[in-house]
């Protein structure tokens, strides 16, 4: 039987894994051997897209043509966007499903509106291709992980992305739960564990009880808008202050891309060192910026505190205290930050476990769940919960809960409705998800109408059944109690795609330039060429005083030759010329770096001298 793959569709990186006998294994990129696929997409002038590392590189050159963390927008409506989102990305102004607008540059600039599920489907298609190449068989079925705290709309959007990628999504598994499965702790004695999962864009915490192969989620909590990216943003803000960048420069998409990329490098460096110094190739010239670990930790303490508050709430919901927790698991690259580890250790009073690479553990767990679904793993079972309460709007705009958060799924609830006026022909039902008292403060999931046999007010009786499946996704059915007639319920999603939307998108499916291996090689080589040409031109313009005439001539000749080759289709020649230009311009680049450091030191001295 064809295998089922496990996919971690992450904010920053995505991975695919499969069961190999009784152990999960990551399927790396056959070309580079890298287990991670950056979750980036970038539009090319011809209307096709590239994903992964090439897209991430293009994002630096063409920030308006690229998107780095579309997962943040899955299942959202326009009204959920914040100022930072609008600053960083352009969104289509119309009323349809939320669409990002990417603008490819070039001779014939192109506008590409794309919904987040479509963008994610491009990443899934690349993972599917990767898996098919590694396994030498068609891959059509997958388990995909989602943040535990994803609501119904966000889950539906993820399932839609799978459908658009030609995958039958057998199950959506919560990321922290998947991590627990990967650790295989559940074969041991009964123990309560906490999974602390800080990813690129989302935070989750889950409390589980494991016994005899059964993993029972007791409670989950989190924040789908809090992740490693927010820590990067704080560092970028620090750089803007430190370098005293004018507001108009600091808010240009090109500068934001450079600042965030530098911030990410600094964050990684600070996991090892007490101070990080990075070069920032800003549009106005290369600058050197510095941040100490103490500065970083002070500026992000509130973010860590927010995650700890969620942990305490989850413990309370599970009816446990920190001392009941026998094991703490760290998931997500952002848990490499020493301050995060220290605070988690303080909260639970024990050293957290991170023996499996926190970047790959979720994908491994997704593969384990795929093994369970295929019937090949029979000694394990996962009992998960719904993360947010689900209910309906009742008289006066009140949110009436039908299913409480942390209820084990599948779960069902029934409610009877009646009419408020005589001869009503239908009742309107508004389904919501959230923890607040008023409907307007909860997330709207769907509206639907149920037809009823006419009668005096209060007499008709409609029984509506809400069923949450093992993916945490809601379906609704209705029955007229008097006539015992079942009604099919047409659920109109408040956010996200209708079946019609998806049908049309499947027909008009975007081209993934990388589907063709030769084309892919060429795009990668061209992206490299473009990167180095862009950097060289900028350096020449901004630092001409550091360049001798002979050197300038040599660099310009090599650049011209590379530019001509990049217009052709021989990717080997492009790569050779990239290497040559690189070699020729290295001494120049070194001098620029030295000069930037000198000037950074000088300005520091002035600061130190100043009273």
């Amino acid at each position, binding site marked *: 039987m064809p295998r089922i793959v496990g996919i971690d569709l992450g904010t920053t990186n995505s991975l695919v894994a499969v069961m190999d006998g009784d152990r999960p294994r990551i399927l790396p990129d056959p070309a580079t051997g890298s287990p991670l696929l950056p979750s980036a997409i970038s539009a090319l002038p011809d209307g096709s897209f590239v994903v992964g590392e090439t897209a991430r590189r293009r994002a630096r050159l063409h920030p308006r043509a690229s998107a780095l963390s579309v997962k943040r927008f899955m299942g959202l409506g326009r009204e959920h966007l914040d100022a930072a989102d609008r600053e960083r990305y352009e969104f289509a102004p119309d009323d349809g499903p939320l669409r990002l607008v990417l603008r490819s540059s070039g001779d014939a600039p192109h506008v590409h509106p794309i919904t987040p599920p479509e963008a994610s489907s491009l990443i899934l298609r690349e993972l599917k291709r990767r898996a098919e190449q590694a396994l030498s068989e068609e891959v059509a079925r997958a388990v995909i992980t989602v943040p535990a705290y994803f609501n119904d709309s966000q889950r539906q959007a993820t399932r839609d992305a799978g459908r658009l990628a030609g995958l039958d999504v*057998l*199950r959506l598994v919560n990321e922290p739960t998947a991590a627990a499965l990967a650790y295989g702790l559940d074969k041991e004695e009964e123990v309560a564990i906490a999974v602390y999962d800080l990813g690129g864009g989302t935070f989750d915490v889950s409390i589980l009880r494991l*016994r*005899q192969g*059964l993993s029972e989620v007791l409670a989950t909590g989190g924040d789908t808008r809090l992740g490693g990216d927010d820590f990067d943003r704080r560092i970028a803000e620090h750089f803007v202050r430190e370098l005293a960048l004018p507001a108009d420069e600091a808010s240009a998409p090109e500068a934001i891309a450079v600042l965030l990329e530098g911030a990410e490098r600094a964050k990684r460096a600070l996991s090892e060192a007490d101070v990080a110094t990075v070069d920032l190739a800003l549009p106005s010239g290369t600058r050197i910026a510095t941040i100490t670990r103490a500065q970083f930790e002070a500026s992000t303490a509130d973010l860590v505190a927010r995650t700890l508050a969620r942990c305490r709430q989850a413990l309370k919901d599970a009816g446990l205290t920190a001392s009941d927790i026998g094991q703490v698991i760290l998931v997500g690259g952002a848990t490499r930050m020493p301050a995060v580890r220290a605070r988690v250790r303080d909260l639970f009073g024990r050293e957290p476990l991170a023996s499996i690479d926190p970047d790959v553990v979720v994908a491994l767990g997704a593969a384990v*769940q795929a093994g*369970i*679904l*295929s*019937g090949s793993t029979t000694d394990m*079972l*996962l*009992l998960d919960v719904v993360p947010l309460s689900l209910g309906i709007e009742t008289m006066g705009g009140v949110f009436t809960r039908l299913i409480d958060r942390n*209820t*084990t*799924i*599948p*779960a*069902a609830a*029934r409610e009877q409705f009646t009419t408020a006026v005589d001869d009503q022909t239908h009742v309107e039902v508004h389904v919501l998800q959230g923890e607040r008292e008023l409907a307007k403060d909860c997330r709207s999931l769907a509206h639907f109408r149920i037809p009823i046999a006419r009668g005096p007010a209060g007499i008709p009786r409609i029984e509506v*059944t809400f*069923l*949450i*499946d*093992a993916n945490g996704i809601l379906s609704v059915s209705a029955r007229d109690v008097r006539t015992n007639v079942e009604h099919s319920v047409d659920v109109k999603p408040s956010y996200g795609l209708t079946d019609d939307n998806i049908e049309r998108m499947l027909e008009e499916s975007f081209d993934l330039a990388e589907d063709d291996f030769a084309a892919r090689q060429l795009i990668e080589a061209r992206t490299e060429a473009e990167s180095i040409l862009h950097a060289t031109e900028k350096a020449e313009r901004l630092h001409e005083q550091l360049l001798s005439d002979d050197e300038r001539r040599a660099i310009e000749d090599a650049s011209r030759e590379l530019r001509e080759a990049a217009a052709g289709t021989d990717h080997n020649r492009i790569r050779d010329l990239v290497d040559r230009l690189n070699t020729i311009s290295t001494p120049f680049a070194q001098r620029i770096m030295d000069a930037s450091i000198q000037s950074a030191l000088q300005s520091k001295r002035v600061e130190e001298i100043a009273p």
Partner: protein
Amino acid sequence: MARIRCWRCGDEQAPAFFCGACGTVQGLSHDADYFAVLGLPPDPAVDEEALAARYYDLSRRLHPDRHQTADAREQVESVRATAVLNAAYQTLRDLESRGRYWLRRSGEELGRDNNRVPPELAELVFEAQEKLAEATSASPAQRAAQRPELEALQRSVAAERTRERAALTDVLASWPPGGNGAANGHDDRAIAARARLKDLLSRLAYLRTLERDVASALEE
């Protein structure tokens, strides 16, 4: 109990998660009796270990993950069956929700007139309302000063709740009243026992709300 037919083989049977004839998973109605579906005797003094063991065993057999390779209908039935199993377990494992279920099963509802303060709690409620009102109108500095009082209040609410829960455990453990099997009966002892159960459950509902209000006042 109404008899139903197996969706696969058509065999007529009492409601159960598996067909007695062919063993196929049956998605039960939500009206199914929670004790019956879990294979437990109808006794509100549930043995928690036995309950958990039954739940895990049934989960392993009913859960949709175990029926992923089956036909579409069986997958749907397994989702519905597991939803009922989860509801049954969730209801019976918690003392207070089990008490409410038992009251309903005995033909009575807690009713919606729960806003009335139970007389036994009047003093505690009066004190709590006073302190909560002070806390809402207080300045941050005053709030810090009031903290010990709120914490003392939290302790007395918790203590009261522990007492009521112990009483509830006793009532459920000695059901049916007098051991004569007439739990739903109309003799004086059965009626008195149901009234006592109802009182305990309303007081516990009130205490739960109070506990939540005090906790949120302390968080602010």
